[in-house]
Structures are given as structure tokens and as C-alpha cells.
């Protein structure tokens, strides 16, 4: 389908915005972002579609904008998914090598991966990704490619990301309703991590936290492979809602205050400072205490980091994050968020930079577009693989073909 063109589109239907990024793959394999379309999202809550009609309209607008900017016709997209129903866990598959010479063949590798993917999931759940981690040959750890090695017993660890079939279908159906083909669905956290992390960082061990409008998705890499994924259904929406509640202002006003005066830390000098909210005629309506505003924000963001931290602690991964923590998503724009995260997680935290992608500067620098760019990157890995070249994402198996066909 992509034979005649090298256009890859990533579509993220987010809680605060719908965003489509058009990427072009050059002959040398490098990626170039040539178009970007976005629309304010109205039909999504906590990462999941709650109003199909509005969401459909928003998606259409974003796609049209991206088409105009890139001057291409979009037919296929890589769709980002998230939501509280998405979970990740590690699983191991075993396969005995039966060939006479004990040499591990490509077939053996495929069999063992298949075994690892045979997971006992609830019937209403579907696998989004089954990502290969490391092979074990006769118990020997850390084998990345066992083909050609000798051994009698081949094992593999996979990281499985799964979610509720129906909820995943909702997004797919919506996109299909717009006469677009969904190439594959991708977990947003995974997409973000692809856009942000270099191979070296993945090897060292890194945590990517994508704090979006409705959800916080996080992914942990150690030794070059994905170890852990998670979704918290909390995001910027919650910050705004807290502000609206705490400062007793309408939600739209809270949103504005957050953008204008928000900060993740409460400074000494803000103590006692107030902002006067005026109506459209310029008459003062209300005064808001800046300290309160920041306190409310700070507590909410702090809690997000604490929850992520607790989860990682439980998974026992804290000591493996030698490259540190990377933030992206709309909430990464909140001033002082990195210092706050450092305080909570006791680790170097930086704002993620999309690397290894060239193109529109305006798109590449924004933390909220990271996921969509990651989707394009995911797509480029996929197409590269289809062309038979070895790639980084070789292990990333989309287990969704059946899901995509059904809707």
C-alpha cells in the first residue's frame, strides 16, 4: 500500500487535541516531518472517545489540515491509543530446539515468540503489542539474536500491552468511518518513547512520562528493551478541574489561568500575589491567589509523579534508569515541572527532545506533538521492516491484524 509513496501519517486522538503528523521517509531511511494538522478535541475524556460525532469532526479537521500542509492525500494512518484499560506485563515463552544439529533457526525463533504471545487474557481484552525483549539460550541471558547459535532450549521474554477490545475498536471504527485505513494501532506511551529516546538511552535505561490532557502514559526501557508500561487516567484535564474547583472559577477560565500563571512549584515570591479576573467589559470579577493556584497544581502533578514512582518501585525498576527520566505531553509545558519531578523521583529529569527526525521546527519542538511524531516513527520502522531491512523495531510485533480487519 505504501509501495508508491513513502508517506507515513501518525494520528493521535487525544483528550485536549487531535493531532495528525505527516512524515516522509527519504531514500536513506531518515524521516522528515512535512505536515501537521491539529484540532481541539471535544469528544474525548481520559484518552477515550465519549462522543463519536464530535470526535469524528475533530479528526476530520486535523486530517484535512495536515493534508493541506503536506500537500498529500492521506489514506492510511498509524493510530495512537491510550486509556486506563491498557495494561502491560512481561511474559516468557519456551521452545525446545529439536533440529539434529542443535542450531537455532529462524523458525525456532518464530515459534518461541509465538509461545510467549499465547497469553491467557480475559476474552474482552486484546493484545496491542507483544514486544520482544531478550532471548535465553539454555538459560544464557541477554541474547538479542539467537539465530545460528547452538542450544537445546530457547526462551524469550516479551512485553505484552493489552487493552479492552471494544474500547480499542471505538477509535479504529471512528477513523475507518472517515475512509481512512488504520495501518496499526500503537500505544501512545510507546510512540512517545520512540520519538524521544536514542538507542543509547534505551540501553542505559530510561523512563518516559507522557502527561497528556486526559492520561499519563509511561514506558520504561532497560538494556535496550521495553520493560514496563503503564497508564494513569490523570492528566492536564485534572489540573484544570482541580483549579476550577479550588479557585471557584469556570473550567474555561481555570484552563486559561493554568496556561498563564501555572507552575509546578510554589515559589516564595508568589506568596500573597493575586490576579484579578475581569469580565469582557474589563470589570473585575474575582481575585485569585497565585499561591493557591500553584499549590493546587503542584499537588496534583506531584501526585502523578508519586503514583508513577510507586508503580516503578513495585516493578523494581528504579535502579535501572541510568539515562534518567524524560517528560513530554502537554503538561511538560508547565514551568518548573522538571524540578518538581526531580524532587519527587530523586532522579535527573529533563524535557524530552524529539531526535532523529528532521523537518518542521514548529512541530518538533513541541512536547505535545511527541506522540504523533512517535507514531510516524513507528510507522517508518514498520515499513522499513517490510522492505526487509533489519531495524530497531524488528521486535515490535503488531498483534492487531485481526482487530483491524474486524471493524
Amino acid at each position, binding site marked *: 500500500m505504501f509501495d508508491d509513496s513513502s508517506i507515513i501519517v501518525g494520528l493521535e486522538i487525544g483528550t485536549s487535541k487531535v493531532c495528525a503528523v505527516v512524515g516522509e521517509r527519504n531514500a536513506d531511511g531518515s524521516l522528515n516531518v512535512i505536515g501537521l494538522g491539529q484540532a481541539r478535541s471535544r469528544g474525548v*475524556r*481520559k484518552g477515550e472517545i*465519549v462522543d463519536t460525532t464530535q470526535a469524528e469532526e475533530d479528526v476530520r479537521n486535523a486530517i484535512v489540515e495536515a493534508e493541506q500542509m503536506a500537500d498529500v492525500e492521506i489514506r492510511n494512518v498509524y493510530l495512537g491509543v491510550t486509556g*486506563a484499560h491498557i495494561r502491560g506485563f512481561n511474559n516468557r515463552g519456551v521452545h525446545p530446539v529439536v533440529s539434529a544439529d542443535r542450531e537455532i533457526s529462524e523458525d525456532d525463533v518464530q515459534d518461541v515468540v509465538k509461545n510467549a504471545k499465547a497469553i491467557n487474557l480475559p476474552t474482552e481484552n486484546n493484545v496491542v503489542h507483544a514486544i520482544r525483549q531478550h532471548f535465553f539460550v539454555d538459560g544464557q541471558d541477554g541474547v538479542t539474536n539467537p539465530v545460528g547459535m547452538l542450544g537445546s532450549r530457547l526462551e524469550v521474554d516479551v512485553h505484552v500491552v493489552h487493552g479492552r477490545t471494544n474500547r480499542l475498536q471505538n477509535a479504529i471504527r471512528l477513523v475507518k468511518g472517515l475512509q481512512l485505513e488504520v495501518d496499526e494501532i500503537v500505544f501512545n506511551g510507546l510512540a512517545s518513547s520512540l520519538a524521544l529516546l536514542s538507542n543509547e538511552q534505551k540501553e542505559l535505561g530510561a523512563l518516559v512520562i507522557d502527561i497528556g490532557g486526559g492520561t499519563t502514559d509511561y514506558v520504561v526501557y532497560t538494556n535496550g528493551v521495553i520493560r514496563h508500561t503503564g497508564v*494513569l*487516567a*490523570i492528566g492536564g*484535564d*485534572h489540573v484544570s*478541574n*482541580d483549579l*476550577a*474547583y*479550588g479557585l*471557584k472559577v469556570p*473550567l474555561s477560565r481555570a484552563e486559561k489561568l493554568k496556561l498563564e500563571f501555572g507552575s509546578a512549584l510554589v515559589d516564595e515570591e508568589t506568596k500573597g500575589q493575586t490576579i484579578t479576573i475581569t469580565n469582557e467589559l474589563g470589570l473585575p470579577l474575582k481575585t485569585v*491567589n497565585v499561591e*493557591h493556584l500553584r*499549590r*493546587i497544581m503542584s*499537588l*496534583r502533578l*506531584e*501526585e502523578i509523579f508519586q*503514583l508513577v514512582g510507586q508503580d516503578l518501585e513495585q516493578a523494581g525498576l528504579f535502579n535501572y534508569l541510568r539515562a534518567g527520566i524524560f517528560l513530554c505531553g502537554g503538561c511538560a509545558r508547565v514551568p518548573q515541572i522538571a524540578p518538581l519531578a526531580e524532587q519527587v523521583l530523586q532522579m535527573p529529569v529533563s524535557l524530552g527532545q524529539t531526535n532523529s527526525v528532521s523537518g518542521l521546527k514548529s512541530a518538533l519542538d513541541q512536547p505535545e506533538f511527541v506522540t504523533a511524531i512517535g507514531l510516524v516513527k513507528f510507522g517508518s520502522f514498520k515499513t522499513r521492516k517490510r522492505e526487509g531491512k533489519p531495524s530497531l523495531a524488528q521486535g515490535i510485533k503488531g498483534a492487531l491484524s485481526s482487530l483491524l480487519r474486524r471493524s
Partner: protein
Amino acid sequence: MKTKVQASAAFLEPAKAPAVKIFGVGSAGVAMLDTLNGGDFAGAGFVAINTDASSLAASSAAIKIQLETKLLRGLGTGGDPERGRAIAEEQFATLKTACDGADVVFVVAGLGGGAGSGISSVLARAAKEAGALVLAFVTLPFACEGNRRQQQAQQGLDQLKSVADGVICLPCQKTFKLIDENTSVLDTFRITDGLLVESVCGIWRLLTRKGLIRIHFDDLCALLRDRHSESVFACVEATGPARAREVVEKLVAHPLLDEGRALAESSAVLVSLMGGKELAMAEVNRVMEQIGRQCEHAQIIMGAAVDETLKNRLSVTVIAAKQGPVPMELPPLAASGDSVEQVTPRGIMARPGSRCGSSAPSLTSEQREQILAKNAGTRARKTGPKMRQAQLPLAIISKGRFDKSEPTIHKGEDLDIPTYVRRGVALN
């Protein structure tokens, strides 16, 4: 009862047994009395009281008292408890004489109508004055019978509680769990009557059968007194070698006990085990251990008795009493004034939740902190009246735009509620 009943011999010689009189009040009460009359209540006197002559005529009770004045013109109370009350007050002397000579008086009535709700509390008072202990067994009407009846029933129940030594109350609504789509109205009433009768029988047996471990009537009254916002009752039986285990399983699955939840929430539980001659101590122990595990917070009173007619059956009777209502799970009528009385002194505002969410911040910061501190301490989902009360104020907090979306619950905490509220951080 106060004359120390000698267990078995006393029962054979009616002279020494406690004189028990069972009063059926109102049409429902009289009907239940008839069912009781068929049972083995040797030595008990049956008295039917009603304002309606026709219902009395059909009754098989030994003594029938028709309360009648010109006021009613032979038409009964017309569903007005005040009239029932008035007429009972008028005939107070008659009621008192009827109670004469009884040590224990059981009052059986269906609350909600005129006679049952009006007369039973007066009767209870008359019996008290005649020197008897009073235990009332009442049903509350079905929800579909309408608000008015519910209110009347609640009023009647409150009045009864203030005079009787113990009230066992069965909201008919609960029997919905026992019936299916096709159960006729007649059968449904038979089932509710049956349940109440079962409880009368259970207590009767408890008090009269040969006891290995005796339960005294005083124990029973002490258990029910002040606690009877709702007492639930269950009686189960099992046979066979694994009967001890089976009986507990049945008990936990009993619909009237809300699948065992009632046990967990109750503050006092009375357990009576009844078996044939071979009732083993080990069995008693096993059953009690299991029940004890179900209701960790409750004071448990247990009794074991031998009834030879039971042969190889093991019968367990449980009466669980709750201290004060639990706001969410009680039927609305039972959430009476108690809840407010209990809650307000602790500084929790028991006012209706406001949609716009402006009501919460008007709590003073001190109060809020108090509430939240309490909540933080008992955040574990363990049941217990204290924790439930602490949850009350959280209902006031509006979740704003997340009101209708699926809540984000993390370890029992609703993350949609602003963090600063949950943590009790005071602004200002």
C-alpha cells in the same frame, strides 16, 4: 424468665416455664399468628387483636380482642395509625388484662397499616406495665406500597422501639431477593410471614430448649436494645458429615444477610446452634470460628442447645444487629434521624450534597482536615461504621467535568477528586 428457667424439666411442667403470650396485631399480625399457631408453641397463649371483625373471625387464636368504638363504625382504622392508637389507648385496660400473667410477650405485627402501626406500641406499653418483657417481631411494607405507608411504618417502628425490650424488624423489600418473577403476591406474603414466623420460632426455641450454652432472654434484649435500627435474621439448616461447614456457607449466602455483608457490618451478633443429641463441641467450635471471622467487629453472643427432634440436622439461627444505619445500604426509610444524630457531633455536616460543589469549601479548614485525617486513617476498604461515616463529606465534593466519566480509582482512592482536597491541604 427472671425466675431462672430450669432447662428441660421446666418445659415439661408448664407451671415453671415462662408464660409466653403471643399477640398478633392487625390483619397481617393475625394472619401470622395463625401460621404460628400450627407450630410447636406448647404453653404459649395466642391472642389476636384487630379492629376488623372479619379478620378476627377467620383467626384460630384462642383469645380474640376486637377493638371497636362507634368512632370506627365497624370499618377498621382505615389505614390511619392515629385512629388505631386512639382506640388502643381507649382500651388500654383491656390490653393490660390480656397481658396479665405473661412473663414474656411477643408482639407480631405488620407495620404500615392503621392497626399494626397504631396498636402495637400501645400494646407493648400495656404489656410492660403488666410486668412482662416485650419482644416485637414486625415487618416493614414493600417499597411499592407507597411513601405514606413507609412513613407510618417507620413511625410505628420508632414508637415500638421506645417501649419494647427488643424489636426484630424485617423489611419486606428484602424478600425480593428470595422470590422470582413468577411468584404470586399471595406467595410473597406467605414468604415474608414465613420468615417472621421462623424468627419467632427461632427465638422461642432459643429460650425454651435444653441449652448446653444458654442464651438468656436478657442477653437477647441487651443485644437488640438500642441497636435495632435494623436487625437481620437468618435461620439455616444442614445435615450430613460436613454440616458444620455447609451451615456456614449457607449462612454467608443467605439473601437476608446480604450475602454475608450484614454480618460484616453488624455490631452485635447472636448465634444459636441447635442439633440432635450428637451435636459435637467441635462442630460448635467450627461454626463459631467461621462466623467470628465473618463479623470481626461484632460482639458475639452464642448459645448451643439440643433438640432431639432435629435428629442429625444442625440448625443455626443468627440475629445480627447493626449499630446505627449505614447511609448507602439501608433502605431510605431506615436511614432515620439516627444518622444525623451520630454524625453531627463529630463535626461532619450532614447536609445534602450540592451539585455545583460550592458547599465543600465552606467547611472550615479545621473541619476539613479533621475529616480527611480520619479518612486517611481508614482508607482501607475494610468495612466499619467509622470509615463509612467519614466518607460522607466526600460525596459533597463535585468532580466537575469528570462527574459522568468512569472514575479513576487507584487503591481505593478516587483520583478525580482534587489532590489538595484528598490530602487535606488547607488553602489560606
